[in-house]
């Protein structure tokens, strides 16, 4: 559900008529019958951090107050605290694997829904930092090889916890930069592996995370998470922003380097990434895929589009708002909506959700009473 809704929201073609039914269906996946809270993959399935992440992000994409209020925050908090592991990481499910992915999914959803308490955060940063390898990327667990999916998870969680600067950001950037394939322009997940369209987001968004950390965590969403004023929020419809429609050209890199009013360039080659997604990852009958020769699927469609959006929009500047500036390969109609590098939902939906949940009571005591 999340992969499909998010993809459609970036394409600005959402199935709004189905949204009520989506909310009702996801309510039934909330695991209050078989656990304190959280979501399972389907009805009667035990709560698990991956479907929890997906369900909440799908509800955030729907964006109505009813959708956002469908989340049982107290139940969710209790579930997260049951998943919290002495190592500082979070387990994906009861007796599940403890790793950067579990930790990120918990931290991201807790941040969004305003249940990120001091008790929740204890030991988390140290655990995540210990997942960085000598290559500069992050692995799934301490001692594991650096891997694009886990790298995104660790970096996003560290940025949300305002602690990414305690990692070796230079090594991180260097590892990231070398994951972009010379020939294809897309990204690989690990050294000496093949390109895969989904890494367009996992690796592409990590560049935005590095930029946010280097800017001292000054970013519109983080400002809102910190209780800042809701001015200069992302517009629902960004068509009036400044756009550069560019052809693949040497001059293009210069345009990317130039500072723009509300978004900045990333230290990857944004055009080659867009080129890979548009020319290699698209499936002839529609949808997107890992690479030519592979079949389309919803996961790759979601993450190829998400990576394309990141490559087009760059990273939003501290002030946010204003006229966003994107660098679009091909015609301007290729421009997708802006996605949050922290949560991978539309930036405007992320902001609206943060605003909604931050009005609700929080704190360990409040969330665990009754």
């Amino acid at each position, binding site marked *: 559900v999340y992969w499909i809704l998010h993809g459609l929201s970036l394409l600005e073609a959402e199935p709004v008529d189905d949204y009520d039914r989506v909310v009702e269906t996801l309510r039934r996946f909330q695991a209050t019958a078989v656990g304190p809270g959280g979501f399972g993959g389907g009805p009667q399935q035990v709560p698990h951090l991956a479907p929890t992440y997906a369900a909440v992000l799908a509800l955030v994409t729907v964006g109505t107050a009813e959708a956002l209020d469908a989340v049982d925050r107290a139940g969710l908090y209790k579930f997260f605290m049951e998943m919290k592991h002495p190592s500082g990481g979070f387990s994906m499910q009861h007796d599940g694997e403890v790793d950067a992915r579990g930790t990120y999914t918990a931290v991201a959803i807790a941040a969004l829904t305003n249940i990120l308490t001091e008790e929740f955060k204890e030991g988390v940063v140290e655990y995540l930092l210990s997942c960085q390898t000598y290559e500069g990327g992050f692995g799934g667990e301490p001692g594991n090889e650096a891997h694009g999916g886990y790298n995104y998870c660790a970096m996003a969680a560290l940025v949300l916890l305002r602690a990414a600067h305690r990692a070796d950001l230079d090594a991180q950037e260097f590892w990231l930069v070398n994951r972009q394939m010379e020939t294809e322009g897309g990204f690989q997940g690990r*050294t000496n592996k093949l390109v895969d369209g989904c890494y367009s987001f996992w690796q592409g968004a990590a560049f935005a995370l590095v930029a946010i950390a280097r800017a001292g965590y000054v970013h519109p969403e983080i400002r809102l998470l910190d209780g800042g004023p809701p001015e200069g929020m992302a517009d629902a419809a960004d068509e009036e922003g400044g756009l550069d429609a560019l052809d693949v050209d040497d001059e293009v890199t210069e345009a990317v380097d130039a500072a723009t009013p509300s978004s900045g360039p990333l230290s990857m080659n944004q055009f080659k990434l867009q080129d890979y997604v548009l020319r290699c990852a698209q499936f002839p009958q529609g949808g997107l895929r890992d690479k030519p020769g592979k079949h389309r699927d919803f996961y790759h469609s979601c993450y190829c589009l998400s990576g394309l959006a990141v490559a087009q929009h760059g990273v939003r500047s501290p002030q946010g708002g204003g006229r966003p500036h994107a660098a679009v390969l091909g015609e301007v109609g290729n421009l997708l909506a802006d996605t949050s590098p922290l949560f991978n939902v539309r930036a405007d939906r992320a902001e609206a959700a943060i605003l909604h949940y931050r009005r609700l009571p929080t704190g360990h005591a409040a969330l665990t009473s009754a």
Partner: protein
Amino acid sequence: MHNRKKADRPPTDEEVEAQQRKVKAYRQLTGACFQRRAESDVSPESLQLTARVLSVNPDCYSLWNWRRELLYGLYPSELQGVPMHGVNESGPMVPSSVGAAIRDVELRLSADALRKNPKSYSAWRHRVWVLERFEGDLGGELRLTRDFLALDARNFHCMNYRQWLAPRWTGGEGSVAEREVGFSQELLNANPANASAFHYRGTYLKRLHPHPPEDAVRDELRLLESAVFTEPDDSSAWWHMMFVMRWGKHEGSVGQWFETVLEEQVALVRTLLELEEASKWGLVALVELLHLQQELGTAPEDATQQVRDAVQSLLEVDPTHAVRYRGMLRRMEQAGA
């Protein structure tokens, strides 16, 4: 139309129907399992039913959880005192004499599931859960990891499982660290560009020698020398070289021997760059080695200029990553270099 791949044409009506039948059968099976779970039907039939689902779909994760609960319901005396949840680092285990049959059914189911999906989180986790509670043949498990890595040398689930397993089996010759460094060599012999093997090797080299002596560092560099000269474009050997140099330097005081090794490495890389001017990784390694010399205070006077020249060359040789290199030059300027 013949010769068109399945992915290129829409499915036929027969294929759609066959697919629907499969889906229906699967749904009935899982429905039955969840129904029994809701009714707390703790029975051998329930256990078998979960096995039928899991061998078809290893990623129906809830059923692995329920299966574990069923084991406690069906074998209470065997599992007496053994905690169901958590890591069970030092708790009691079920001895082989008592639990071998139960254990082997679980391990066999997991192995069947892994043959279907060698990357199934649930199936690998189940092995860990079982072997935390039942005494087992850990040497055999190490062999299993070798088999799965033969199918896919980059399967990180398998490598991570081996990482969990390795310290728990101390049979065989030498220490665990020596054995695992040897295992990484086997993987590298099969594929000299196996970056996962290099990574794994590095973690165990650090355990073997937290503060490596000269010959350990020289031995590693000797292994790498031929790799970087025959395949200068393969980054994994270069990465390992940079790892080895950092490992050799480690924190704290470093012997004169390391400064010599570092000088020799710089010379080696320069030799390679004479043969292969456009070697990106040679240039990257050179920058890293010069930085190391600067940290030790043994860098030549014009080291900063040498670094700048190398980064300029990288801009020409590796234009895809131009933004990164320009950033490096900018930061050097700002630092007053």
